[in-house]
């Protein structure tokens, strides 16, 4: 039995053989006295086979198409495959009471080379000059101001489904798994990336996204603003690692620095002592 488990590709033939001949696996148990245990074992194997099958399906898509490089090597280094997965959703979680726009903006900026950027501005607070200063091409931007969250969800899904859209940014306070999954399917069809901004309390909720990031504000300097962005989910990526993002508000220069763990610790210690 161990042999079949170590060779992952070997499970499916075994299952097929089992279906053809129900006694195939039981052949090395001549007595067959523990039928219940065998059944349980078979159920586990079947479920593993199912998982492997879905994994191989979902991995087959992104691998043949090019990843989107963010241009910031520290971020790209964390991402599975060295870049953002196209045809997928990416979630950015923020612990504060507003959606964090900086990381999505960087992602959208790098996607803008291949198509249009749709930004859902439900709160009517998005400030285009600041986005332009950070390098988002406004001539490729479509700003949506839907009147309700339901309309926004419809519009974002519709945009993701379209091949002309390279990135669609939407913030959602509440999102069911079905809705998230629907967006992921739309992105798979359309080919762009979906950037979903959610509050940090959605961390424990089910999701359908290729990567998830947690972005926290960090102490900065006079004209230097900092965040830490932690990759909290992403198959094949360096999950759990953080990047320190830095933007200078005078020059609009963006930097990403890898693994500044001590700084985060120090900041947390400072916050705790205060």
């Amino acid at each position, binding site marked *: 039995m161990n042999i079949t488990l170590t060779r992952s590709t070997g499970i499916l033939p075994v299952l097929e053989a089992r279906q053809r001949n129900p006694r195939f696996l039981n052949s090395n148990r001549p007595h067959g006295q523990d039928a219940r245990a065998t059944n349980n074992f078979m159920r586990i194997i079947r479920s593993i086979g199912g998982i492997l099958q879905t994994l191989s399906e979902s991995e087959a898509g992104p691998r043949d198409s090019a990843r989107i490089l963010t241009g910031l090597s520290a971020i790209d280094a964390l991402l599975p495959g060295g870049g953002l997965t196209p045809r997928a959703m990416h979630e950015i979680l923020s612990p*504060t009471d507003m959606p964090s726009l900086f990381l999505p903006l960087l992602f959208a900026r790098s996607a803008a080379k291949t198509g249009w950027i749709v930004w859902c501005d439900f709160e009517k607070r998005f*400030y285009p000059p600041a986005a*332009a200063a950070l390098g988002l091409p406004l001539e490729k931007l479509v700003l*949506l*101001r839907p009147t309700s969250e339901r309309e926004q969800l419809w519009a974002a899904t519709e945009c993701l489904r*379209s*091949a002309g859209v390279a990135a669609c940014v939407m913030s959602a306070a509440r999102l069911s798994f079905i809705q998230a999954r629907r967006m992921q399917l739309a992105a798979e069809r359309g080919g762009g990336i979906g950037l979903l901004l959610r509050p940090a309390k959605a961390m424990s909720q089910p999701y359908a996204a290729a990567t998830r990031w947690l972005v926290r*504000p960090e102490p900065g300097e006079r004209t230097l*603003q900092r965040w830490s962005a932690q990759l909290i989910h992403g198959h094949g990526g360096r999950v759990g690692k953080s990047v320190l993002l830095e933007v200078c*508000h005078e020059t609009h220069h963006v930097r990403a620095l890898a693994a500044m763990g001590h700084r985060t610790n120090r900041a947390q210690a400072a916050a705790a002592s205060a």
Partner: protein
Amino acid sequence: MLLRSVASRQVVVFACARARERGIKPGMTLAEARAMCHGLAHLDHDPAADARSLGRLAQWMIRYSPVAAVEPPDAIFLDMTGSQRLFGDFFPLMKRISGELAQLGFSAGLAIAPTPGAAWAMASFAEKNGSITGPEEVRASLEPLPVISLRLSEESAAAMHLLGIETIAQLQKLPRRLLPARCGSMALTRLDQALGLIAEPLTGVQERKQIRAALEFEFSIESLEMLWEVFKRLIASVISQLRRHGRGARRLALEMVIEKGRAIVKEIHLSRPSLNPPVLLNLLRCAFETVKSNSGFIAISLSVLASESLTDEQLDLFDQEARAADQEMDHLLERLRIRLGTGAVLTAALAPSHLPERAFSLTDSSQANPTRNKTSTLIAPLKSRPLHLLPTPTEIRAMVSPSASGDALPIALVHHGSNFHIVQCSGPEIISGMWWEGRGKTREYFEVEEQTGRRFWIFRVSETRRWFLHGIFDC
């Protein structure tokens, strides 16, 4: 008043009755007209739009006669032969035409005469509007009219003026063989045409039927499957009619009649002319999703409000991929506009203003035509600006560092009942108000960071010393 630009002068082309009362005449310059009448309203003259409008009016006038011909710049000929039998007599017919034209908002000189030339002359220059001239009165009624009533060019009219010929009667007295040499060949032709010696055939405008498809049902239908089927049939019918004309739909109206006789009308705008059934079906479905109705529909019609010729569809063979992506984007924007409504699908551009809330402009994507890549000449300012800008600044309370002068820095904020201790502060960036609009208050902007790293964009009004939160740097 309508204007036309000739070289650097702006010349009056047309003046309304009230302007004419004040002495403003066509041919004056705008400056002269302004001197005569203060506060006059004027618009640029658009001859092409005039011609289009005249063409549409001719289409409309087909109701009176099978032949309606356009005579640029401002006349329409109707061949009334036989029409009087249908409408009673010429007189009630004329009355009816002038009444219905007035309803449409046109005032027109009308005349009925045996030849188009005579009718034009009578309508333009006869003392009495709406004259009816019989075959034997033509010569007599034309004689007192000025020569320009023969639709002559400006040069030949000027030549006749030099010769002292003012009326048609004088013109007729001249020897016929001398006329072409002196006054241009047109004069003789026009005279003969007006008198009926030479025929002047009229080329009537083509009647353009509105392209429309409608289905009525014996019982009201409610199920979506049936509606989709109805939509498919309507689209197929409309497309086959459009294809015959080689045109694609640009604007459609979907009219759905519910049982009590009330109709719901949805307009659908397309970014480029289309004959593509799936695209149209998709748009109809989007439009239908915004319809709120509890009862079923007893009739549905689809009419084409505007169409465009499809000739340019085939041109871009080389650039097909980019074009396909553009088209796909156009279709997406159409669907979004239909569902979200106008004003919800926007394109953004930088605007030249030093006020942060005016440094950008949002335009509805239907006007902006976003697929045409435009290069902005404005460069984003190298100043610190927040990604979230509040639509209106909210007042906050701030604690400032002790300072004798007015340039104290903020050290703590109270916003929504929570305290923020400021650890970083940069500024002030001083932005003066628009004193020329009467809003002269100066704002001093600070970029402040509180302990946990959140950054705010706050300003102090110099005059009142009050603090406002205007934006939040991304957090």
